[in-house]
């Protein structure tokens, strides 16, 4: 312990001063005496000092102690206490949650301490209140975003929101499905190379067209139009026809400039083809009719000649008959097609079979007062139906079935049959069903519908009939509807469920490439593609080939697991057994898969505008580089290697395998040794490394690349 020397000195000082004062007084008094008087004093005091000297010393010690005590008390009260107060105040300033300052010293100091504590308490309360308000506000904003995200995700149109540079901030499941349809990449990328957070919309819609539409919208904004938007139609490279509607995203203020734009995309290829087909048919009909009429007219005119020979007359009559018959056939064919087209135009909605059965059971039970057995339905059976009219028809048929039966024993079921669906209403057979169940209006079904059951079936381009069966001796009857299955929608719904939370990132609104080179941009702002390959062996120059590419994306500091690339590649050669033990890819799995020449362009599109990241990525890059000449696909993106980055963060660690690094960073790795599994693990490692690199002053891409080059492993390898 350090002794408080100044304090000790201050405490000893009064005693010493008293002793000095007394000694000086004695010496002065003695000096004024003459010699005999001095001798007499000495003679008188000498023996006294011997006997009472200790008493004097004791008296002095008492005085010195009193002095020391007084100094100590004054020091404590006027120096130590204010110093402690100041210290406590300093702590409170820097840390609002620090304990209150101790009240010490005199009354004034105690008052100051109390005031300080009160102030500190108030500040603490204010801070907590502020934090609560901020949290509430952020929560509300996040909630609104989620609601908006969910809303857009469920929209039936394809919606894409972009910032002014064309970077995608939001897209919905429909847009993803649309891109999957128009993508020319093999299945493993399936549109993920076209649409993704932070990707450019210009991969889907030509930049020039968007710029043109934006100019037109900007002009309308300047003119003060309330809802400016622009529409255009464009061709995709895959030959699809898209109708695009572009509307600006603006601040609430009137006339505010756009900060981004919303695109509604419609694949009108089929619609357009149907219209073109109808046009062609109309044209053909008018032309063939005119030609036919001309032949008839001319033949009739010829028949007017009075001097025709019988043979000639018969010839012209035959012309009239032939032409009339041909025209009749054309009109019949056209009428049939028109009627099926008008049925197809009836708006049918995609609905899960199970949902339809549940809704219909409920309606029938209410209408007839009888319980309906709903058979277990195949989980993913989607129908394309007009549920309102269909349920009305089922209810009407249930009434027919109930009539005249003691225990009708109603049962509903739906099943798949030859690319269509059977929707069955089963009931106890035996008694006859009133005639006209197909064609009479379903007035009794509640709601007074003028439609008949047959109308409803035809609306669906389907059929309906009554079947009688006998199961185990009990006669059963079935009203069976043949209905269309939904195709793309079920697919969309399945994909929507997986990854909705990653369909938007409004932080990208603020993100702007600006004029910064990528090297100067913070790592957190960049988009990365983290990838891995599986190969037949370790020697690309010796003929080893890529057999799988897996990749995922990191945009704005978020790992977008849904936007992944996962593609097996046919290597066009055998796969050694030794490798199969590691990657588990057997020759049968790559049979029928696209060759590398087909996969690399799609992968290149997938990685566009991003920084490539991999673990020991030089290995994977060597395989890609060797294919450059053959495929013409050049990967010249900036590259980061998690192996090198990890060696910067943990220079003394011995193991730099992906597992070892993941373990050090506390990441649990699953699904390793598939390309996508490794890419995801590597992505998680990379995301954990970013803040650690920042602590070492490595913030930008350029700094990360420079540090990588200087790292021990880089020097070792290159």
């Amino acid at each position: 312990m350090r002794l408080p020397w100044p304090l000790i000195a201050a405490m000893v000082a009064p005693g010493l001063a008293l002793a000095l004062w007394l000694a000086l007084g004695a010496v002065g008094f003695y000096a004024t005496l003459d010699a005999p008087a001095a001798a007499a004093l000495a003679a008188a005091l000498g023996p006294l000092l011997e006997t009472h000297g200790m008493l004097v010393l004791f008296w002095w010690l008492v005085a010195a102690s009193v002095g020391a005590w007084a100094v100590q008390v004054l020091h404590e009260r006027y120096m130590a206490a204010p110093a402690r107060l100041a210290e406590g105040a300093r702590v409170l300033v820097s840390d609002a949650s620090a304990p209150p300052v101790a009240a010490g010293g005199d009354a004034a100091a105690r008052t100051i301490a109390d005031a300080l504590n009160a102030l500190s308490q108030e500040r603490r309360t204010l801070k907590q209140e502020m934090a609560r308000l901020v949290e509430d506000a952020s929560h509300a904003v996040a909630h609104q975003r989620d609601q908006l995200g969910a809303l857009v995700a469920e929209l039936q149109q394809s919606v894409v929101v972009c910032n002014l540079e064309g970077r995608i901030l939001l897209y919905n499941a429909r847009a993803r499905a649309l891109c999957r349809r128009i993508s020319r990449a093999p299945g493993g990328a399936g549109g993920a190379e076209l649409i993704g957070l932070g990707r450019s919309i210009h991969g889907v819609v030509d930049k020039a067209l968007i710029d043109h539409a934006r100019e037109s919208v900007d002009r309308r904004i300047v003119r003060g139009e309330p809802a400016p938007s622009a529409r255009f139609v464009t061709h995709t490279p895959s030959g699809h026809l898209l109708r695009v509607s572009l509307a600006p995203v603006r601040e609430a203020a009137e006339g505010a400039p756009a900060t981004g734009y919303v695109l509604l995309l419609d694949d009108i290829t089929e619609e357009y083809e149907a219209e073109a087909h109808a046009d062609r048919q109309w044209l053909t009909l008018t032309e063939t009719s005119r030609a036919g009429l001309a032949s008839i007219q001319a033949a009739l005119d010829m028949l007017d000649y009075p001097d025709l020979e019988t043979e000639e007359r018969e010839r012209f009559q035959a012309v009239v008959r032939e032409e009339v018959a041909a025209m009749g056939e054309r009109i019949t064919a056209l009428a049939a097609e028109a009627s099926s087209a008008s049925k197809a135009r009836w708006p049918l909605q995609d609905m899960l079979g199970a949902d339809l059965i549940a809704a219909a059971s409920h309606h029938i039970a209410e209408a007839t007062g009888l319980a309906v057995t709903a058979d277990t339905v195949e989980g993913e059976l989607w129908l394309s139906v007009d549920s309102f009219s269909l349920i009305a028809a089922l209810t009407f048929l249930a009434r027919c079935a109930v009539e005249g039966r003691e225990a009708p024993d109603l049962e509903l079921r739906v099943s798949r049959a030859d690319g269509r669906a059977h929707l069955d209403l089963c009931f106890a057979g035996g008694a006859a069903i009133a005639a006209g169940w197909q064609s009479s209006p379903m007035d009794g079904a509640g709601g007074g519908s003028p439609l008949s059951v047959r109308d409803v079936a035809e609306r669906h381009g389907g059929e309906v009939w009554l079947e009688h069966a006998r199961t185990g001796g009990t006669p059963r009857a079935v009203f069976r509807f043949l209905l269309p299955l939904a195709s793309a929608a079920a697919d969309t719904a399945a994909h929507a469920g997986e990854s909705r939370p990653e369909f938007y990132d409004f932080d990208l609104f603020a993100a702007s490439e600006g004029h910064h080179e990528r090297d100067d941009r913070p790592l957190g702002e960049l988009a990365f593609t983290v990838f891995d390959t599986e190969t037949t062996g370790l020697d690309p120059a010796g003929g080893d080939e890529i057999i799988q590419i897996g990749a995922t994306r990191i945009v704005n500091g978020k790992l977008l697991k849904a936007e992944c690339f996962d593609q097996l590649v046919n290597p066009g050669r055998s796969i050694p057994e030794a490798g199969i033990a590691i990657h588990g890819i057997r020759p049968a799995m790559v049979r029928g898969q696209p060759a590398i020449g087909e996969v690399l362009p799609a992968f290149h599109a997938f990685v566009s505008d991003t920084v490539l990241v991999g673990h020991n990525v030089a290995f994977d890059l060597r395989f890609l580089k060797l294919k450059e000449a053959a495929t013409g696909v050049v990967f010249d993106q900036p590259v980061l290697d998690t192996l090198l980055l990890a060696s910067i963060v943990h220079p003394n660690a011995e193991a730099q395998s992906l597992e070892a690094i993941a373990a050090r960073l506390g990441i649990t790795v699953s699904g390793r040794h598939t390309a996508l599994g490794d890419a995801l693990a590597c992505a998680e490692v990379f995301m954990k490394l970013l803040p650690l690199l920042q602590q070492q002053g490595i913030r930008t891409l350029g700094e990360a690349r420079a540090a990588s080059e200087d790292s021990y492993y880089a020097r070792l390898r290159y």
Partner: protein
Amino acid sequence: MTETQNGTFNDTALANKIIGNGKPAEKVLIADDEPNIVVSLEFMMKREGFQVLVARDGLGALEAIRREHPRLVLLDATMPGMTGFDVCEAVRSDEDTRDTRIVMLTAKGRETDKARGVGAGADAYVTKPFSTRELVQKVRDMMAPDAAE
């Protein structure tokens, strides 16, 4: 009517070549892929005293025009292969056949089609169905010696 092997063009009976006044009958080519209209047109033109040639498609029509130099062609606009418009353009661009009178017969009724026919050089444009009487009158007018070249 006898058809040549390739079915594109036909020489009519010699009896039709000479009419009352001893002058050789003028040739009219009917080019249409619809046999039912050809039957009536052929009958009618023969009655008018013309020598009638028949072609069933555009190429056959062009070949017949170049070989037989008919004075007038009743040309269907929509034929397989070479259309009537194409034939018209080819006839007008050839010094040898330029003066052939062309009546374009067509089932296309749109104004744009008519403009195209006239643009390609048809002297008249007749939309199907038509009155044969009016067509005959039109042909007579165009074949009259004083009809403008």
